[in-house]
């Protein structure tokens, strides 16, 4: 996927003007936000907070031991009959997947939802190499047949209305006219069932890897995750190296926090623990299972001041809580990972120079940190990224001049008072819009009238009163 994060402001403006998108996104995010609360705090506020701290500790402890856990996971997985491959970057991962496909002489690949595969643009690569790739998550499937991109990491089509989805399904796969979501869903069920039974290879991502048992864990609701990992003769999973956790007990906490934070469900419908290919006496399941451990910039993040970002379990709660995401929608962020965590991860993975507006696409209100099941300090990282930007001199001239004047007037009493007086004087000017450079500040709002008395004046008056 082409990186278009430099275009954030323009894309967000377009999204703000799109009434359909506004109503769809605000409805979707609000609903998930409310449902999350009752699910995470099912046993009370204090208990929920303690569980969040527990999940946070589990992930950080895991990251402390990341290389050792990866080695342990590899060893256990091999013992379970899983073939483990390693990939430094997107190109290597895609190449390795393609090699398996070619070796099996496979034609048709069916996929369950995976953000990592979006990250490495796997579909494009495989299709260019003559492989037919079919997405099977309903949202991802709609995205695929519309030539669109996901705008949310949990609900990929949150930006689309029912009517627009209906039109796509009618046009692309001949669905008869209906306005009923259930009829649409079941039509796609029938359509995709055939594909599942015909596919040569199933490709998935992974939510967790348990090191001590060598298990690959997935959480899905629709059942496509189970189909993809059960029906085709070969299953390939591409998983980021940060997904590995030490023990079954750690898994028990995290795999429950994930759906509670994501959609407010107490459990995903299918909490799937995969221990390898079908055993000798089993009737079904794939004959071969491959797991690709993907780095693609993660080891770089590991050694930076942003290691915390690797604790993310991709629940999407920070997207739903973010006032910026809620109005700008996911596409504005210009790459695979949107919202607050996307604003951190995108610059780290693709380079700050290709995503320079993102660290500023936040009001730093702190909602993201507050809802994050693993308590990632996203606002802190956004601030640090802004700092990095300034150090790289990536901020614009006007910005710098503005900041210079601001710093100057705040450092000297004389200048500070003078600016104060100037602003106070403007009280009597009939302006509601600011001119020139400051124009953008009042583009969507009125210029407020400055107060008759500054805080300093009031303070001084107060002191005089006390003297009396």
């Amino acid at each position: 996927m082409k990186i278009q994060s430099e275009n954030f402001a323009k894309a967000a403006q377009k999204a703000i003007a799109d009434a359909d998108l506004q109503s769809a996104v605000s409805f979707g995010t609000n609903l998930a936000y409310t449902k999350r609360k009752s699910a995470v705090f099912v046993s009370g506020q204090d208990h929920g907070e303690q569980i969040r701290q527990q999940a946070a500790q589990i992930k950080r402890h895991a990251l402390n031991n990341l290389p050792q856990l990866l080695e342990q996971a590899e060893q256990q997985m091999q013992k379970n009959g899983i073939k483990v491959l390693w990939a430094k970057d997107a190109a290597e991962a895609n190449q390795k997947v393609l090699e398996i496909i070619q070796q099996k002489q496979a034609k048709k690949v069916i996929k369950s939802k995976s953000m990592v595969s979006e990250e490495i643009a796997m579909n494009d690569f495989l299709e260019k190499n003559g492989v037919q790739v079919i997405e099977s998550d309903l949202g991802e499937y709609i995205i695929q047949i519309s030539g669109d991109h996901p705008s949310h990491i949990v609900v990929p089509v949150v930006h689309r209305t029912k009517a627009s989805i209906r039109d796509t399904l009618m046009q692309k796969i001949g669905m008869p006219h209906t306005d009923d979501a259930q009829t649409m869903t079941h039509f796609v069920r029938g359509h995709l069932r055939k594909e599942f039974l015909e596919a040569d290879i199933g490709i998935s991502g992974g939510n967790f890897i348990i090191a001590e048992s060598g298990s690959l864990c997935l959480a899905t609701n629709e059942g496509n995750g189970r189909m993809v990992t059960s029906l085709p003769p070969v299953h390939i999973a591409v998983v980021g190296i940060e997904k590995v956790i030490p023990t079954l007990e750690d898994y028990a906490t995290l795999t429950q926090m994930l759906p509670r934070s994501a959609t407010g469900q107490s459990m995903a419908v299918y909490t799937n623990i995969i221990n390898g290919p079908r055993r000798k006496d089993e009737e079904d399941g794939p004959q071969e299972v491959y797991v690709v451990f993907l780095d693609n910039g993660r080891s770089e993040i590991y050694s930076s001041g942003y290691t915390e970002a690797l604790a993310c379990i991709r629940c999407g709660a920070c997207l739903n809580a973010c006032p910026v995401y809620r109005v700008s929608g996911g596409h504005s962020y210009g790459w695979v990972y949107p919202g607050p965590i996307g604003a951190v991860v995108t610059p780290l993975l693709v380079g700050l120079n290709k995503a320079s507006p993102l660290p500023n696409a936040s009001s730093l209100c702190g909602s993201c940190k507050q809802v994050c099941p693993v308590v990632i300090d996203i606002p802190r990282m956004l601030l640090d990224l802004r700092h990095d930007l300034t150090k790289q001199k990536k901020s614009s001239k006007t910005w710098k001049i503005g900041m210079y004047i601001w710093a100057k007037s705040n450092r000297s009493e004389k200048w500070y008072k003078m600016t104060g007086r100037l602003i106070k004087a403007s009280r009597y000017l009939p302006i509601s819009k600011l001119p020139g450079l400051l124009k953008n500040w009042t583009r969507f709002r009125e210029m407020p009238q400055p107060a008759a008395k500054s805080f300093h004046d009031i303070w001084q008056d107060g002191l005089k009163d006390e003297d009396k």
Partner: protein
Amino acid sequence: MSNSRDFILNKLKKNPAPFPEQSKVENYLPMVKLEKKTPESLLQHFKSEAEKLSAQVTICNSEKSAEETFFKIIGNEIQINCWSAENLPLKNFYQALKDKGIEITENESVRIGVTGVNAALAATGSIVLASGKGRQRTASLLPEVHIALIKKGQIFADFESWIKECCKKGLEDFTNPSNTIVISGPSRTADISMELVLGMHGPKGQYLIIY
């Protein structure tokens, strides 16, 4: 191949632990605090949680009534995708199927799938199914309706207590089955305008018979 492996691991190992203040969790809190854990209260809790997920739950007092409940649910269906006899908790079940002329097949078009369970989890209304000989995955996946036969003694308080039991039995035992699935209600999606629809790819209906 080993090149990338060593490259990644060496790069990671060069760093000191990024969160030195964070150690292993000592006492894990469960996700849900259950007030009462008597068998009867767990049974009732399981039922009410499963029903919240749109499962149809019947609690029976004998094998006989469990069997009757089963035949009432399947109505006139004459084909089922069913786990093998030794994997189901009902002793005379296979004979009863034979008497009614019901055929057992893994054909994709079969509408009813029948399984036992390894465990049921009260806190979340979930059932746990491990793969194995005579325990095909398709039975709980492809048919439109999934019927699970559960013994009262198989009900655990929650996911955590089931995991604890697994740890006790050992990792070998845990990884023996190629796949263990924890199912919570029928397949669902809300991708189209956040409207909940049951039966996206997996079963549209889930019946739990407990006895």
